[in-house]
């Protein structure tokens, strides 16, 4: 391995033979990883490969069971992230760490607030300081006075990144920073990353999108089963995937079956609700209808309203020919609609509960015999989903909160697939899912569609939309502004339509 040559220069931070187990699960085992100053280093691997665990160790959030951490030419031991901060090491963890009931400004400047002579925080200066700090990073769309809970998921990710960058770290770890971001937000992030690199700082990031890795990483470290497989200056995607998975993987996007001409399963006419207006479309059986657009332009609200989780204030909705006015998710579910939301932490999973319970939650009624859950059937159904989606978990009884980020996402997807709905609302379903499993999920979605179901698919990934959907409706400011018809569009078309005349600020 080329590990030997790397030892020559002093690393900005380095883990040597680091291990960490949870119960019987060896999340990271004898892994070595060195980051140089002034480089962008990508850490890639399958879901559950141990990337986040390694980052948590190097960021001081958890302690390793064994191995050594070195900063410069010193051996260090981090008891808490605070110790890492003191060494100029900042981390944006995969699970965001913002405070929902506190303002954006308070979150952003936590511990570094402007203070008066008394040592107390100057509230009057706080918002202005935050606004200036955000503007310095090119962020003008987030109100520093808003509470974090009032912001969108993408905005939270941006705030979290901004908070770490503002502390001018020598080493910045970004654990899947882009999974909640759309194209132009990723560009924004990469501009900042390049700037940090230019200042001689080190940036480590993880991503399941190869494009991103290829476009910005100076070096790439591949992990598999808790250990590093190797570090490479450049590597072909196919080779990297082979090293990550230990096998060859076919094309990421399976071929899309031709658009069906069957009957309509869902028809929306002039729908209106909070955040969207005058939305009309038809979804055919067997059709995968994409929704594109920047975050915050109404797709999220539309999906929530279709699912009955947000009010629908106008228009008409028909599912399977019957009118539907969902007032709560139960109504929508009864009509055969399932929603896979974008924020798995707050909108879907019960983190302390088991993988099995989470998978079968939507089926409880079905599984019950005289009020008692048929445990045998429940188990076999859960087992099947774990196998289909390759959910990496030591057992069905494991708490979902202990799974890796990508595997949590798979559990959420699995729940709704088990419910076998007529209409699936998918919101960024492959967020944080590794390449091999992405491909499986795409196939599964296509199979579901081919089986006569209708799929509405929002994705922040324009490539995904262009490969997966028969048609794409692009939303801007709560309205559908473009329809890109079957076959004849590319990812660039989606992006262009989403951005429209309201170009990226200069």
């Amino acid at each position, binding site marked *: 391995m080329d590990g030997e040559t790397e030892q020559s220069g002093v690393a900005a931070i380095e883990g040597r033979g680091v291990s960490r187990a949870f119960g019987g699960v060896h999340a990271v085992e004898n892994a070595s990883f060195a980051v140089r100053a002034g480089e962008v280093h990508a850490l890639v691997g399958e879901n559950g490969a141990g990337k986040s665990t390694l980052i948590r160790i190097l960021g001081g959030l958890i302690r390793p069971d064994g191995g050594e951490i070195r900063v410069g030419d010193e051996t260090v031991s981090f008891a808490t992230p*605070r110790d890492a901060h003191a060494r100029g090491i900042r981390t944006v963890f995969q699970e965001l760490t913002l405070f929902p009931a506190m303002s954006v400004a308070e979150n952003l400047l936590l511990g570094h607030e402007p203070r008066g002579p008394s040592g107390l925080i100057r509230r009057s200066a706080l918002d202005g300081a935050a606004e200036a700090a955000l503007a310095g990073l090119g962020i003008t769309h987030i109100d520093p006075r808003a509470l974090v809970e009032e912001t969108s998921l993408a905005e939270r990710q941006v705030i979290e990144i901004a908070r770490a960058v503002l502390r001018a770290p020598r080493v910045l770890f970004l654990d899947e920073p882009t999974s909640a971001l759309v194209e132009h937000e990723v560009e924004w992030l990469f501009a900042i990353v390049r700037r940090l690199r230019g200042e001689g700082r080190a940036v480590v990031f993880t991503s399941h999108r190869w494009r991103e890795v290829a476009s910005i990483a100076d070096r790439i470290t591949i992990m598999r089963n808790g250990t590093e497989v190797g570090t490479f200056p450049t590597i072909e995607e196919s080779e990297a995937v082979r090293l990550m998975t230990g096998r060859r993987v076919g094309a990421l996007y399976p071929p899309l079956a031709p658009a069906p001409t069957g009957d309509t399963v869902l028809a929306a006419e002039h729908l209106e609700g909070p955040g969207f207006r005058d939305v009309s479309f038809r979804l055919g059986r067997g059709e995968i209808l994409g929704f594109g657009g920047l975050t915050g332009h109404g797709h999220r609200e539309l999906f929530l309203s279709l699912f009955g989780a947000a009010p629908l204030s106008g228009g008409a909705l028909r599912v399977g020919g019957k009118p539907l006015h969902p007032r709560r998710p139960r109504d929508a579910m009864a009509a055969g609609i399932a929603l896979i939301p974008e924020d798995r932490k707050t909108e879907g999973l019960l983190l302390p509960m088991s993988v099995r319970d989470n998978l079968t939650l939507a089926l409880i009624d079905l599984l019950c015999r005289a009020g008692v859950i048929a445990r045998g059937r429940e188990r076999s159904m859960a087992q099947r989903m774990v196998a289909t989606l390759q959910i990496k978990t030591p057992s069905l009884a494991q708490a979902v909160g202990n799974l890796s980020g990508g595997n949590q996402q798979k559990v959420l997807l699995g729940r709704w697939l088990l419910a076998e709905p007529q209409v699936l609302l998918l919101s960024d379903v492959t967020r944080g899912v590794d390449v091999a499993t992405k491909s499986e999920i795409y196939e599964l979605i296509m199979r579901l569609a081919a089986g006569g179901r209708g799929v509405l698919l929002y994705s922040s990934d324009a490539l995904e939309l262009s490969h997966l959907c028969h048609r794409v409706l692009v939303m801007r400011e709560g309205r559908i502004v473009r329809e890109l018809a079957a076959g004849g569009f590319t990812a660039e078309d989606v992006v262009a339509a989403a951005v429209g005349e309201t170009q990226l*600020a200069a």
Partner: protein
Amino acid sequence: MSASLAAPARLTRVRRYLLHNLGLNLALALLVVVVALYCGVYFAQQGRFPGNFELTSTVDNTMPLVLAAIAQTLVVLTRGIDLSIGGMMDLTNALAAAHMKAGIGSMLGWSALILAVGAGLGLVNGLLVAYGRLQPILVTLATLSIFQGLAIRVLPDPGGAIPQAYTDALVNTSAPWALVYVVALALLWLGFRRSALGVALFAVGNDERAARANGIDVIRTKLAAYMMGGVFAALAGLVLAATATSGDATTGDGFTLRSVVAVVLGGVSLFGGRGSAIGAMAGAFITMMIVNVLFFTAIDPLYQSFFEGLFLVVVVVLGAVIGRRFRRG
């Protein structure tokens, strides 16, 4: 910078202020309502409005609960709860009645000592919760009994005496002096809210894991919260002793639940991380006004707690409904 993010849509100032301090604002509004109600009932009965005497006695009588409510707020904000507040008040109250003598030295010395005892009792709670990682409700339920037991040992029978000078210093029965304390406490709170510890307290209550990830010392923050809670509970015990001019080892018992009620009425979230001690102070006054109103409406004292409970339920439900309406806009 070539890549920047834009698209504004912001709340107006007033709306945002009301929304972000909803609990506090509802509590203050409710206080105005119950005060008006009290004045109305009083007028109907007495043919005049309440005056200096009523104001003074009401404020004086509410002070122990105000302090207990602040103690409870500090702990609840960390997503905990302190059921031992009543026990701490019992113990500190008993200590004062049993030991304090006339003479400035004794009064000052014992006051300082008793406040330190309060901090110590809070520290015990804090250590068990923060280091022992035990449920606050279990820990403080256990220490409640322990503190109550200790109080009985210190002062087996009600009695003892509080020096008259001490009562005069802490409680002025001829003018609503205590309102000055209320204002001072509110100002103290506003200052605390802007201190590093104040921010840490809210952060821990919002999300403990996030707090740790952001370099906040979670254990120390929790210890501080329980200790400060202990100090305020001790202060409540002292004021209670001063008001009663004698001691009783069980007189604080009722304050555990009433402090929780005050906190809830004051819009402090029992899930931690949101709320204001000023709201809790208002909650204490609301509780007291309700008792006064019930007194005037000549409701059978046997039913008093029934009506207090009913009121609490109605207010909490109403608050939740208004909150939801308001948020939706």
